[in-house]
């Protein structure tokens, strides 16, 4: 199934042993009706009490053997399935770690989580079931038919014929039920989406007084889901009566024909009893198979989803290891597009060239969607340039080892994600062996020390999923401290002070000043006041550089910059009339 075979291979011994044991279990189980027939035929009919006793003990022994082989099969199957699951999980995790941002974006975080959790469990369960049930059911089926044929060939043929019919009926039923179930899933998604949105957007719903409207909408999707679920369940409700009826009809037929055979002494009564038991065996194994087949399709989908991840080639090649000093950085005619195409209309960045040396602050300003974030994300190779190149110390960054490159860059992303653990753990994320002093130092510069020490547990306060709720501004400052702690020669702030109030932001800028003198700093900002002291201000306009220079230079030469300036400081006259897009 979808190339997951390789992960089964290491356990091939168990893969052979489990079904083997299962076949033995089935064999022992199938002996029982035959032995019971023996009791009836020779013990009861021919009046042999000793034989009844002997056969009884034999049956107990066979039952014990069936238990031993059954437990053995499960033991081996468990070994395969659980190890297989653990190996796949590890393979997935390892693979995902090599993913580029582009890969992550294509899969989406939520879907990666489902693949690593739900889907793995799904295929793991399937392997377990396959090694047991998928072996058991057909062996029971075939075994019963064979046993039946041995007892009486003519009666056996009736059973064989019925079995073929039943397999066909089941196949048709299952085939038609699949589309129904995928529809059920679709409608269920709609219900969940509606619910989720109303929870997340409850303020909007309330503010616009749309409760009644939403109730009606929900009733609509709810009804649709209920309708299709009932339809699917009703369709499947036909399944068991039909299968049971066909099988019971076969049973009646065997009684009729078998009775006649008994009368002309072509079959013994006990054998007829055994035969009836085999018929029942066939029926239960068929229903078992149809139960497992539902699993097969689920596991198939999961296996495919896992396969997709494992097959993805991380579209970023690592460079060679060499220490990086990061004294100088240059963008050479950089073009970038998120969708592999380099067609002009898809370009998010075009023809961007500039350079910076240690000590420089490169501020980037421009409208929403002008490509500011994209530009800085190219520096640590979160994405690779589509055309042109970026050089650090004269080397193309694609030839530098990724780990080395990223360790030289301290980046504060827009989204300040914190991991479960203490505040200290989070600040020391990039350097787990950092001392308390180092952590506090970084926190002080990031203006986070004060609020952290005010928390009951200080630096040991737990944050993340199960931790305390921090405000957006507090999270941002921890994220900044996290980037500062590794003392990187290149610092990147991607609009990472948006949740800070003005006072705090100003203090932060002051406190970063010394640090920035020895670094190359990239700073994305909305406010002129934040960028005014930068050595280089890049004005981005629809992905291209509209102006580059100091505040003073740009004020004199760059129309876009003037317009931004006017929008923040000037009165109402806006000299730059072209309407902005974003």
């Amino acid at each position, binding site marked *: 199934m979808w190339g997951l075979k390789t992960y089964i291979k290491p356990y091939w011994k168990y893969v052979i042993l489990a079904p083997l044991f299962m076949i033995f*279990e089935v064999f022992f189980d199938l002996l*029982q009706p035959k032995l019971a027939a023996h009791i009836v035929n020779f013990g009861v009919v021919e009046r042999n009490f000793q034989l009844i006793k002997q056969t009884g003990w034999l049956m107990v022994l066979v039952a014990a053997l069936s238990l031993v082989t059954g437990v053995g099969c499960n033991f081996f199957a468990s070994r395969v399935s659980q190890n297989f699951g653990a190996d796949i999980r590890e393979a997935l995790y390892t693979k995902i770690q090599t993913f580029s941002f582009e890969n992550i974006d294509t899969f989406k975080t939520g879907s990666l989580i489902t693949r690593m*959790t739900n889907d793995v469990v799904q295929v793991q369960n399937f392997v377990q079931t396959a090694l047991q049930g998928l072996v058991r059911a057909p062996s029971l089926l075939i075994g019963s038919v064979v046993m039946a044929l041995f007892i009486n060939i003519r009666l056996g043929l009736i059973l064989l014929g019925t079995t073929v019919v039943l397999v066909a009926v089941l196949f048709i039923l299952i085939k038609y*039920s699949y589309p129904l179930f995928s529809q059920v899933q679709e409608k269920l998604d709609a219900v969940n989406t509606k619910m989720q949105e*109303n929870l997340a957007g409850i303020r909007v719903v309330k503010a616009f007084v749309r409760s009644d409207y939403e*109730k009606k909408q929900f009733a609509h999707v709810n009804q649709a889901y209920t309708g299709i679920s009932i339809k699917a369940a009703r369709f499947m409700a036909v399944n068991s009566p039909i299968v049971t009826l066909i099988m019971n009809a076969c049973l009646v037929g065997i009684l009729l024909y078998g009775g006649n055979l008994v009368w002309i002494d072509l079959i013994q009564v006990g054998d007829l009893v055994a035969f009836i038991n085999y018929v029942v065996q066939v*029926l239960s194994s068929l229903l078992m198979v149809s139960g497992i087949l539902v699993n097969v399709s689920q596991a198939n989908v999961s296996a495919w989803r896992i396969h997709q991840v494992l097959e993805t080639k991380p579209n970023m090649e690592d460079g060679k290891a060499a220490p990086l000093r990061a004294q100088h950085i240059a963008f050479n005619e950089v073009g970038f597009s998120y969708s592999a195409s380099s067609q002009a209309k898809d370009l998010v960045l075009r023809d961007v060239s500039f350079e910076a040396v240690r000590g420089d602050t490169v501020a980037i300003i421009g409208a929403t969607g002008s490509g500011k974030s994209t530009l800085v994300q190219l520096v640590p190779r979160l994405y690779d340039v589509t055309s042109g190149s970026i050089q650090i110390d004269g080397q193309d960054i694609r030839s530098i080892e990724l780990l080395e490159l990223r360790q030289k860059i301290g980046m504060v992303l827009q989204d300040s994600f914190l991991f479960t653990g203490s505040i200290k753990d989070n600040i020391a994320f990039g350097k787990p062996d950092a001392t308390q002093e180092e952590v506090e130092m970084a926190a002080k510069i990031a203006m986070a020390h004060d609020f952290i020490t005010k928390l009951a547990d200080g630096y040991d306060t737990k944050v993340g999923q199960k931790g305390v709720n921090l*405000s957006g501004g507090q999270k941002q400052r921890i994220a900044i401290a996290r980037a500062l702690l590794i003392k990187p020669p290149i610092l990147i702030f991607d609009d990472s002070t948006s949740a800070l109030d003005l006072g705090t932001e100003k203090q932060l800028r002051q406190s970063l000043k010394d640090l920035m003198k020895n670094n190359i700093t990239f700073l994305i900002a909305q406010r002129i006041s934040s960028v005014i002291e930068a050595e280089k201000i890049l004005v981005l306009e629809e992905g291209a550089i509209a102006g580059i220079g100091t505040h003073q230079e740009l004020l004199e030469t760059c129309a876009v910059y003037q317009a931004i300036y006017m929008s923040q400081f000037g009165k109402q006259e806006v000299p730059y009339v072209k309407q902005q897009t*974003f």
Partner: protein
Amino acid sequence: MSSSKHFDEKKGAANLSQMGFQQGRGPRPGEVPKVRSKDAKGTLSRIWNYVKRQRQELIIVAVSTALTACLLLLGPYLIGKIMDDYIVARKSAGFISMIIFLLGIYFLGAVFTWIQQYTASSLSQNTVRKMRQDLFEKYQQLPVSFFDQKTHGELMSRTTNDIANVANTLNQTVVQLISSAFMLVGSVVMMLSLSVWMTLITILIVPSIAFVTKKITKYTRRYFSEQQKHLGEMNGFVQESMAGLKVMKVFGREAKSKEEFQVLNEKLRSVSVKAQSFSGSMGPMMNAMRNLSFVIIAVFGGIFAYHDIITIGVIVSFLHYSNQFSQPINQLANQYNLLQSAIAGAERVFEVLDLETEIKEESIRPKEKIAGEVVFDQVNFSYQPGVPILKKLSLHAAPGQMIALVGPTGAGKTTIINVLTRFYEIQSGKISIDGKDIQQFGKSFLRSQIGLVLQDAYVFSGTIRENIRYGRLNATDKEVEEAARLANADVFIKKLPQGYDTNLSAEGGNLSQGQKQLLTIARAVLANPSILILDEATSSVDTRTELHIQEAMKSLMKGRTSFVIAHRLSTIREADAILVIKDGEVVEKGTHAELLQKKGFYANLYQNQFSQGHVS
């Protein structure tokens, strides 16, 4: 080895048909983690209240289940009878009619099984549909404070896991409980009528086997729950490392995180191999137990038949009945756990349904449009007792005025909006609009007069047009587009390949924050409210675009009272009055010019933001 699996089959089929799209159960019995409910009786009676609305379906299910059980009991009896009276006795007269009778029984059995399952599926689905609808409507009525305290995931699992649990249980368990009860009583009666001695043996053996099974289950469950625990830990780890994947990569932490993963994974591996080996043994165990009872009945049946106490046909019948007798006992034990977890799920749903809702009060609806005079008079408010947020806050906005609220984070600006819209109720003081206490307006009416644009711009999945139209459902396409134009949103909308009909993914994933803000402004514009509130509504929009919006808003704000909260002081310079809020109080008040003159908090703030930028 089972003699007859009539009942077993039915169960297998029920699983297939009713659980279909859910995690299918393997051939071996799965285990359900135990969950205890607090008030099982009360909860059951409330579920019953939902179920009994469909009296007709309920009766059909009960009757058809009972009939199915009876017919199932009759089958083995007839087979035994045919064996004894006709086949062994070598009597052909009436043989054919008995055979046809048996066939008829089986046919009826199939028909009633079908009726039962057909009806049960709509019974359970309609029951939970009502429950789901009630829950959704309840969510709509709960105060905002409820949602501020709970995570969405927590609330979602009420609708997904908990309700699905109830549905499955209703579908399977209830039917099976009814049928188990019938089968249990019925098979004892049938067995007694065949042979008292054999019945005694069966009655002694089967329950003791069930008892042993139960004991073993208890033992294996320990491993099962340990496995679940480790799996939970692993899932938590995966969830977090996927969510933080980008941060991890930026910091080059891949190797370290893989180490952590491996520790967890190896632990899970060894625990789950053991757990699966143990808990998976339940299948073979049960199988062995079934075999054992088969053996005992076959042997004792043989002995009795040898002594001519019973006939061969009776042995055949008993081999069937022993199974039909043990199945319900095993199932009752199994279903009990399922039932427990469903009851616990239902309890969580009812917990929500029992919460107090926002009171629906009679409202006065002024005939004329609200003029928009807003007065806060000595308003006190706190989210938690002892931590006051608004302290004796008073403010006055004349109709049509633009009031700006500035101040540091946590000063209480957003809280002012929360109490004005009555998302939260004030503890003392008075808020009035046009001289009337807002308590007198119904919440719906009050909110319909207020246009609210929040910093966290929320968009729904659907088209852009639908999202804007949310402001006024009966607006024409033209009005929607006009609103978008006013909000300066039409520029980017027109650039999208499908324009206004562009589908937005969940929570507007394909729009930037700034674009979402523009959409929500357009939505508020379309609603045409008397009072407009912009809470950091343009924080992610660049300043030039914002300027254009402001231009548009100027005409929009004409004749409307508006409240504007903004970090960017450029946004609010034009306000009729600027209120500086600090620690829940108004510390300064005046126009931009007046406040600058004052050289107080505002002037300082302004200095911070602009001093360096101003080129004199």
